[in-house]
């Protein structure tokens, strides 16, 4: 029998949820992190049952460790007692990565939020995983440095969460995403041991454990310390808007810019629906009558900057840009970015609910794929606003729906799935930066076959031998792939029913 058949037959260690003695659990956890570091009342737990995605599940208890040693003791305890555990940063994730799908212990890193060291001379900082992304860039700004990955949630999301999801952001086009900016990790592996991968230096001998852990969505262990690369702030920045009267022309311009090789620091696109939402909430100065805009940022030495901006302007005009507006000062620039980064929230003001999709396609496919997103919007009769990292082909269609309308959520989820499936078919992928989590777990078979998944499962089991660490995330259970469509629809129905119950 082939390897995949073998794997399908042995689903790995059978994990049983032991009946939990809540009082004992709370007492034991308090013994490790102190009574002030444990939440166990249903009222409190409710705040930790969800993240930025649509799924929910209550943990038995939330614990707030303050050190790697405490994390190691928690993990060892889970091993002894056969308890599931899941790590959580700020809970801003969009794919359900921090939801304790099978209950157990939720390890919240919000109290491990210190900057341990800023080593400006070596362009490194050592931080705890609960540190808020933006706080790092603010702390190192006086040294003329910053941390490149800048997810839109950077005011709240944590570095540990960024490591788990391999987060991106608008400014990762040239300098790369989280994995390109992490050089070392301290990790508590599922055997409860504290281990060190990499450090301030690069090119550690042996296997690239840092490369494997970044983006593993908390399924291989819990990160307790992160060594990050810092980058000198650019000497000059130029931000401008190219305005288009059709989405197609705008996406052609993106393709043209990439093909030309003059890659700017950021290249973001918004369509008319999105512009309307952003303007309604932030008055950033986007033109309401445009079919689409490109927000472009170039950085570098002033001379080179002007030349690069000029080339990009030429390409945009050639592709039919009707207008070109340059932010004249820092305030205008900040307003534009505030609008862009607040885009998801802005849609929240327009529509009772929205579902964020995170597909990626080869950049030359953008015009085709955006047209198809329009078709999907019409098919389900749900408005879809587009705001995305055009430069890397990373789409973020926001499907608007009303969760109180029967059937709307299911339609939204199906529309999202249609978009993701199309991205996969066009040679792209399921997620550019939001992660697979539980949301897209059963869509993994759009791009991975059973053999691929069996190998990923082997890697996971090499670390998480007992199957307790962030269960049911990222990799679908064997044989699940054929049933995706049904499974997703059913999940949506369950969520809908549960929400309806709670509304009562």
């Amino acid at each position, binding site marked *: 029998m082939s390897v995949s058949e073998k794997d399908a037959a042995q689903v790995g260690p059978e994990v049983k949820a032991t009946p939990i003695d809540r009082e004992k659990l709370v007492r034991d956890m308090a013994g490790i992190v102190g009574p002030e570091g444990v939440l166990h009342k249903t009222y409190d737990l409710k705040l930790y049952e969800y993240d930025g995605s649509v799924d929910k599940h209550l943990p038995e208890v939330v614990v707030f460790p303050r050190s790697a040693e405490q994390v190691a003791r928690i993990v060892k305890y889970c091993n002894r007692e056969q308890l599931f555990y899941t790590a959580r940063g700020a809970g801003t994730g969009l794919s359900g990565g921090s939801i304790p799908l099978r209950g157990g212990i939720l390890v919240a890193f919000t109290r491990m939020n210190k900057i341990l060291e800023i080593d400006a001379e070596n362009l490194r900082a050592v931080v705890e995983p609960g540190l808020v992304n933006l706080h790092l860039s603010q702390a190192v700004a006086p040294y003329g440095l910053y941390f490149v990955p800048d997810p839109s949630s950077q005011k709240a999301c944590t570095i540990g969460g960024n490591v788990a999801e391999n987060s991106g952001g608008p400014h990762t086009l040239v300098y790369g995403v989280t994995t390109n900016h992490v050089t070392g990790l301290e990790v508590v592996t599922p055997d409860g041991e504290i281990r060190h991968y990499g450090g301030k*230096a690069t090119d550690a001998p042996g296997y690239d454990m840092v490369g494997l852990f970044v983006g593993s969505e908390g399924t291989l262990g819990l990160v307790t310390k992160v060594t990050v690369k810092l980058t000198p702030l650019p000497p000059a920045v130029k931000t401008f808007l190219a305005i288009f009267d059709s989405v197609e022309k705008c996406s052609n311009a993106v393709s043209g810019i990439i093909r030309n090789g003059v890659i700017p620091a950021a290249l973001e696109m918004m369509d008319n629906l999105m512009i309307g939402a952003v303007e309604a909430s932030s008055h950033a100065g986007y033109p309401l009558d445009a079919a689409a805009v490109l927000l472009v940022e170039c950085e570098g030495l002033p001379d080179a900057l002007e030349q690069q901006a000029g080339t990009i302007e030429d390409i945009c005009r050639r592709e039919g840009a009707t207008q070109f507006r340059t932010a004249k000062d820092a305030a205008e620039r900040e307003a534009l970015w505030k609008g862009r980064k607040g885009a998801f929230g802005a849609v929240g003001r327009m529509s009772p609910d929205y579902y964020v999709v995170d597909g990626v396609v080869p950049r030359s496919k953008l015009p085709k794929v955006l047209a198809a997103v329009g078709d999907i919007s019409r098919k389900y009769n749900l408005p879809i606003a587009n705001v995305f990292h055009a430069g890397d082909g990373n789409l973020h269609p926001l499907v608007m729906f009303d969760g109180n309308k029967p059937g709307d959520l299911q339609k939204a989820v199906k529309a999202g799935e249609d978009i993701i499936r199309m991205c996969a078919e066009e040679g792209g992928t399921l997620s550019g930066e939001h992660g697979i989590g539980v949301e897209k777990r059963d869509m993994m078979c759009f791009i991975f076959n059973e053999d691929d998944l069996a*190998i990923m499962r082997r890697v996971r089991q090499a670390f998480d031998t007992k199957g307790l660490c962030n269960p049911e995330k990222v990799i679908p259970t064997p044989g699940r792939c054929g049933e995706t469509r049904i499974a997703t629809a059913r999940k949506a129905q369950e969520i809908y029913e549960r929400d309806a119950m709670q509304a009562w």
Partner: protein
Amino acid sequence: MTIQDSNLQVMNPGTEQAVSRLFEEFSRDKLKTRLIGSGSKSNLGNPLGSYQRLVSSVQLAGLVDYQPEDLTITVQAGMPFAKLQSILGEQGQMLPLDPPELEGQTIGGLLATNRNGPRRLLYGAARDLLIGCRFVLSDGSIGHSGGRVVKNVAGYDLHKLFIGSFGTLGMLTEVTFKVAPRPQYVGAGQAEFGSVEQAYQAARQCVRSNLTPSALETVQEDISPNASCILLFAAEGMRVAVDGQLAGLSEICRKAGAVSTKLLEDGPAVLQAEANLENRYNTLEGQPLQIRVSTTLTGLPRAHALLAEIGRAAGGDARVVSRAGSGITYLLARPAPPKLEKLAPLIKKGREASQVDGGSLVVERAPVEIWPQLDAWGDFGDANASMQALKNALDPRHLLNPDLFKL
């Protein structure tokens, strides 16, 4: 070299399926297997343990997919690196990896040994450029990770594990890179400093400045104490911008105490010659000693001194060269035979001193007499158990490139 020495016939599967069938058979019979590309770098790292089969990727050399407008390319792993660059060159693009040139070396071999060169300062190393791969594990199972888009978080980044794995986890069959447009112009210059410390200090100032050098290399040809040191710098992009960058870099060097600075003709050739330095020592007749220390930027002067000390003890021709913006320094030497027994203890001492801040000392090439006393990589610290778990998961019978990694 070793390939001809071996009595084994080289097997050259022409498809991924053929690799899979071979591996399945070897796995059943528990046959240890050596994996190679063209064999151009087979003297890197620990000598292999005994093996019964020899498989090369050179017949897996095709172009799979190239989308110049997307700046991505997918090729089979046995394609010669030079061929890949010439395909990209026709479209005005390049894979921005500049390893030492070796006749026939394959993409797969470059990745397995994680080679790079001076321009990694600007473009990063292989881990920053490889976005997906297909591979065959020792039991014959075929898998893939990543994809053909530049941003992708679906599934584990297994492709990163193959970089620097020296073929101990599986055989790469297909790889996808993000590529870059060729710069309009590459310019280089150099500054001479009275001391090594000054050269590194200047390099650090260049890194922290507004400028974006594509390479910063210190070269010390005379490693006697208190000898002078060269800092080579380069910049690339549009001509005007490059000229400005080089002027700025020269200025920083002068302020940092450079004895002299000058611009060099033919930047690309200067950089390639710098990348190729190790080839001068890595020749058939001589037995090279090539040691790499990874450290922080501020740790470089000390690492440099350490390597210089080993180089002096080795006698013969030796120099110390550093990627001064990336925290990597190399000793390139051809030791005098009688000195060999003194070297192992010195190298071990240097290794201990290097293992701070995630730093390491790797013996990349060494005379055969030294290997029984030394491991190429040293121990992996408390990461060892994780690496062992990975090896056991992906190559459970430890069949591939036996004993290269002591796991």
